[in-house]
Structure formats: structure tokens, C-alpha cells
């Protein structure tokens, strides 16, 4: 269990992170979300023990983090890049032995991962000779080869085609089953929505909302219906209890006032426009993100 309490990091005249508290549990994916410059990287860096917080505590299984902690952590930074002139297998081994893995064990794991991610035939190629996607896979291996207990993934899916995205996603999910702690930072809200069980939404260094995703959705005014229709949407807009409408020509997400049951809305529009489908929906994480960030700024 990773527990962060009242984390604050100040730079000369900027407060990058302001009084942040959260807990990451075993076998759970923790989504660290927020717009660019929200303080996600600073938070990650303090958890990684790369920078010291101005105040606050970070503990990992009841021990405050120190350099002993290095070997139990795996980190995939958002900006990718490896030693371009070096060979795939050597780069993987270098990062593995830096995590205190014995060389023979590192070689075994390297073989395992190279074959799992279908990179076997490139093992002796230089990094620069690989396609971008394959380079990303090599980097993914370097962050997980030492079997870390805590894995911090910053935009793990960027640069992957759908097939590789699926491979990476399945790999991450297998880590969940192994009981690892995973912090996932991403701008892909649909991906976060499907994978994360807990969320922390940041803006300008401050917590906007946090908690289990299911709870969040319930709290976030769930009175939204999805509507496929033909006709004039002016009618919907003019209904007094329609709080917001997210309109895509012949498709709309309509948020109703909390007191209005969706069937009342259906009754009011029935017969006036042609309805192709009607569904009561929970807010997407994407919507929660956009609305919450807008509210907080």
C-alpha cells in the first residue's frame, strides 16, 4: 500500500503540488488524471523519490520511501527514448542490473519479455533500427523487467497501434491480478475509465476530486440520457429542466435537472421529434474530467 499524506511541493514561486493525499492499493489501478501542467509529473517524481517534497509524507507498506525503494519500483515516463545506438538486449539488461537484478536472472527475464512482446528477432539490433512502436515496447520491458511491486505508467499507450495497445493493456491487467500497485497517468479517458478502479483528478496542483470511480460517477450528477434523433434540437434545448446538452447533430447527451425522472423527458419529446434510441447513461470519465476541470478553474 502506498500512502501519500499532505504532499506539497513548492518551487521558487510556484506551488506545483498543494496538500495532496491519496492511497494506492494492491491489485488496483490508480488513475492520476489532470490537464497538462496539473502537477502529475511532480507528484510522480516525489513518489519516485527523485525530488524531495517541501512537506508531506510518502510511505510504502508502512515504511517511508528511501533509496532502498528504488528496486521495487518501475517507471515508464511519458517522454520516451532509449540509448539509440545501443542494442536492444544490452539496454534491457543495463536497466535490469541497475535495479539490482543478478545478470543471469536479468537475461532470463529479458528473453521472456522479448518473446512475449514479439521482439525476439530484434534482440541484437540497435534501438534506432526499430520502429517507434517496437522502441516503445522495449522501453515498456525496461520498466517492468525487475518485477516491481509499484509500477508508474505515464501515458503507456501512446505511440502504439491498436494491436499493441491491446497487448500492453492485457499485460497491465495481468499485473493487477498479481497484486501489483499501479499508478496510471493518461489523457485517454476511455482507457482510464475501463482500467482504473480509483481516480485522483488534479488541477493546478490541487485535488479536484478523488475516490473509487463508481462512487465518483454516482456523485457526479448522473441524470443524463443519450438520445438518437431526427429533427430540430431547439425543442430539447428549450425544455426548462434540461441543464446541459452535448449535441452532435442527430445524437445528443442531455443532462436533466436532478429532480426530473428521465421518462418525463421522454414523454415531453415523444411525438415531436423522431427518436431512434433513448438510453439512460452514467457520465463518462471524459465528461467528469471536462466538467470538473472547468468548474475548478
Amino acid at each position, binding site marked *: 500500500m502506498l500512502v501519500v499524506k499532505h504532499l506539497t511541493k513548492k518551487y521558487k514561486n510556484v506551488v506545483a503540488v498543494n496538500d495532496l493525499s491519496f492511497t494506492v492499493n494492491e491489485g488496483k489501478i490508480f488513475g492520476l488524471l489532470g490537464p497538462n501542467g496539473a502537477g502529475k509529473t511532480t507528484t510522480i517524481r516525489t513518489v519516485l523519490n527523485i525530488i524531495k517534497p517541501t512537506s508531506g509524507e510518502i510511505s510504502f507498506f508502512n515504511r517511508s520511501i528511501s533509496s532502498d525503494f528504488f528496486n521495487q519500483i518501475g517507471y515508464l515516463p511519458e*517522454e520516451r*527514448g532509449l*540509448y539509440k545506438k*545501443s542494442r536492444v538486449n544490452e539496454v534491457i539488461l543495463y*536497466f535490469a542490473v*541497475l*535495479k539490482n537484478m543478478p545478470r543471469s536472472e536479468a537475461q532470463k527475464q529479458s528473453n521472456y519479455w522479448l518473446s512475449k512482446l514479439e521482439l525476439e528477432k530484434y534482440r541484437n539490433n540497435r534501438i534506432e533500427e526499430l520502429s517507434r512502436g517496437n522502441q516503445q515496447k522495449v522501453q515498456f520491458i*525496461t520498466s517492468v523487467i525487475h518485477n516491481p511491486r509499484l509500477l508508474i505508467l505515464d501515458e503507456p499507450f501512446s505511440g502504439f497501434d491498436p494491436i499493441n495497445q491491446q497487448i500492453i493493456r492485457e499485460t497491465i491487467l495481468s499485473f493487477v491480478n498479481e497484486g501489483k500497485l499501479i499508478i496510471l497517468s493518461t489523457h485517454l479517458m476511455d482507457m482510464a475509465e475501463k482500467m482504473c478502479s480509483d481516480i485522483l483528478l488534479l488541477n493546478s496542483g490541487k485535488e479536484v476530486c478523488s475516490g473509487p470511480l463508481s462512487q465518483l460517477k454516482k456523485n457526479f450528477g448522473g441524470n443524463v440520457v443519450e438520445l438518437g434523433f431526427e429533427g430540430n434540437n431547439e425543442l430539447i434545448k428549450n425544455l426548462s429542466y434540461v441543464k446541459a446538452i452535448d449535441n452532435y447533430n442527430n445524437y445528443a447527451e442531455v443532462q436533466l435537472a436532478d429532480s426530473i425522472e428521465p421518462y418525463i423527458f421522454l414523454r415531453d419529446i415523444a411525438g415531436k421529434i423522431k427518436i431512434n434510441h433513448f438510453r439512460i447513461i452514467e457520465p463518462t470519465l471524459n465528461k467528469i474530467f471536462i466538467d470538473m476541470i472547468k468548474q475548478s478553474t
Partner: protein
Amino acid sequence: MIKKVFEISKWEFLEKVRTRAFILSLIITPALVILISIGGTFLSASQEESTKAIGILDSSMTFYPSLSKILENYKLSNGQPAYIVLNLFQPAEDLNQNMKSADNEVTGGILAGYLLLQIKDNDSINAEYRSKNAGNFKDVQRIENAIEEVRLRISLIQIGINPDLIKSAVKKINVSEITVKEGKEAQKSDFLTDFLSSIIFIMLLLMMIIYSGQMLVRSLVEEKSNRLIEILVSSCTPEELMAGKIIGLSALGLFQMLIWACIGMALAGSSMIPVSAFNNILIMLVYFVLGFLFYTALFVGIGSIVTTEQEAQQITSYLSLILVLPIAVSATAISNPDSVFVQVLSYIPLTIPAVMLLKINVVNVSTIEIMSTILIMIASIYITIFVASKIFRIGILSYGKKPGFKELISWIREK
């Protein structure tokens, strides 16, 4: 923890030793140095190989007879006299006319040069060696010695000492001077080769420092730009990372030197490089290693604060300029090693290695000076590494604008 430092240095070493640029530098640098030294020995040899005609224009005629005798005593390696000395003084003409015709003979190539001696009222001597090409150290040095000797003899006469006594007395001085010279010549060493061999070592040091410094800064910038540095410092402490880099690079430098030394020994065996270049090899090696470590630590500290390749190049070229300074003052350092300027330079950590490499082959450097400069170097290496590690820790994680001096100080102070 030591294990991680070892792994990092091993990686840094292997990564760089296999680059094409490094392998090229292994060959190109010694080739360049050999070219220079061959050029130098060739130059000094060709000057030696033929007898030179030298004129003396001494209107008082008090110096000419003894001077010419002394100069004509110098022999070439083949036994021929080194100089033929001509009297250029024509009593019928005035001094200006005398000089004009003498100058003509020099420009016309009849004379290699001539010595103009003027005795001033207060008994001081004004001596000029006028030749087509300036900078013939050896000739000028011999002429200076000869004048000094003759002047001594004349002033003895003036005091009123028996000429016979003077002769034997002066002769004694003469004899001892010659033995010193012969002793040196037995080692096949002379001023020019001393100078050249020192310059060779400084150039080697320079090239190594500049080359490896650039390599270090470039790889740091690369690691910063693709955030590899963050993965590294989430696997080990910045201190370990820095130590690994310095050790790896130093190992690379030593390896480079080992190869160059092998090439050097082989060439010295075939007498392409003066053997005297290796006289003080051990002590030179010490300065070499210390200088290399010092600059490497400096490069690590500075390299960690730059973000772009461009800035990196700017900074490495500034540092290289400081390194070149000793070469620029090398002539002064050798002709006048006790001057205040050179003394000061030989106690500044930035210039100690180069200046000492220069001095040690040319003049007798006292043990105290050697010990104290080595101590200064060790202390400054320690301090530099300490300060660099403080800067490194923060520098590697900051991007964009270069920090100002004030900001750097706050980085160093930060716990």
C-alpha cells in the same frame, strides 16, 4: 551501492569505447601529434645540419675576436663547424651604412643573420641578433652565452687582473659550461625537443579532455531530453549516477592513454619521437590523471544544467578556451618559468595540469612545488565533485532556461 556505480561506469565505458568517433580519435590524435613532433625534429635537425654564416657588427671591436672564437668552436654532429663568423665592421663607413650593407647580406641570403653590438656610454651592451626568421632559440641562446662569457672576461681585465690568470679563470668557467651542455647532448635533448615534448603532452591532455568532455555533455543532454535520466535516478541516487559517469569516463581516458602510450613507445623505439619526452613520464602521468579528473567533474556539473545541444557546445568551447590558455603562454612559461604570471598560473587548478606539464620537462621544478600543486589539484577535485554533485542532482531534472548564478548557489545550498 558500489555495484550500481560499477554497472553505470561499465555501461558508460562500453557504450563510448565502441563508438566510431572514439575509435577514430584513437588513431587520429596520435597521428596529429606525431606529425607535429616529426615536423619539429625535422625543423631543428635541418637547422643543425649545415654550417651557418653569421656576421658580427661590433663597432668597438672589443667583443668580436673572442666572440667569433667561441662561436666557431660549436661543431655540427658531422664534425663541421656550426658557424662561420664574419666581421662586418668597415671602419671607413659610419654605423648606419654598415648596418645597411649587413641587412642586405641577410636579406640576400648570404648571411643567416648577424649580431649587432653597441656599447653604450654607461658601459652597458645593447645586442641585437638580426636575421630573416625570428625564433631560432638555439642560435640566440648560444650567442647570449658567448656574449656573457666575453663580457665577463673584459670586465675582469678592466678590474686589472693578470690576463693569464683571467684566461685560466675564464677557461675554468668555460669548461664547466661545456660539460653541462655535453651532458645534455648525450641525452639527445635540447631546448626545442623539450619544448615540443611538453607541448605534445599538453595537446594530448587537451584533446582528451575536450573530446571526452564533449562526449559526456552530449550524452547527458541526450539523457535529459528523452527523460532517460529520470529512469536512471529512479534506479540509483544522483551521486551514484555521477560517480559512475566520472569513473566510466576516466576509465575511457586511461584506456585511450594506454593505447597512445603503446603507440608512443613503439615510435620512441623507432626514434620518431624524442626519447626525452618520456623522462618525467610518471610525474606527468599524475598531472595528466588529476587534470583529467578535475575537468571531467567540472564538465559533469556544467553539463547537467544545459538542455540543448547548442548550449552544450557553447559551454564546452568556453571550457576548452581556458584549457588552451597555457599553450598560448607556453613560450613565456618556458623562457621565463619564474615570472609572476607563470607562477600564478601554476597554482590555479584550471591551469595547473597544463602549466606543470609544460614546466616539468623544461626547468627543474622543486619537489615542494610538485607536492603543493598536486595537493591543490586533489583538493580542488574533491571540492569540484562535491559542488558538481549538488548541481547535478537538481540540474538533471530541470529543463528550459539555464539557471542563473544565484539559482546555482541555492542549488548548492539545498539539502
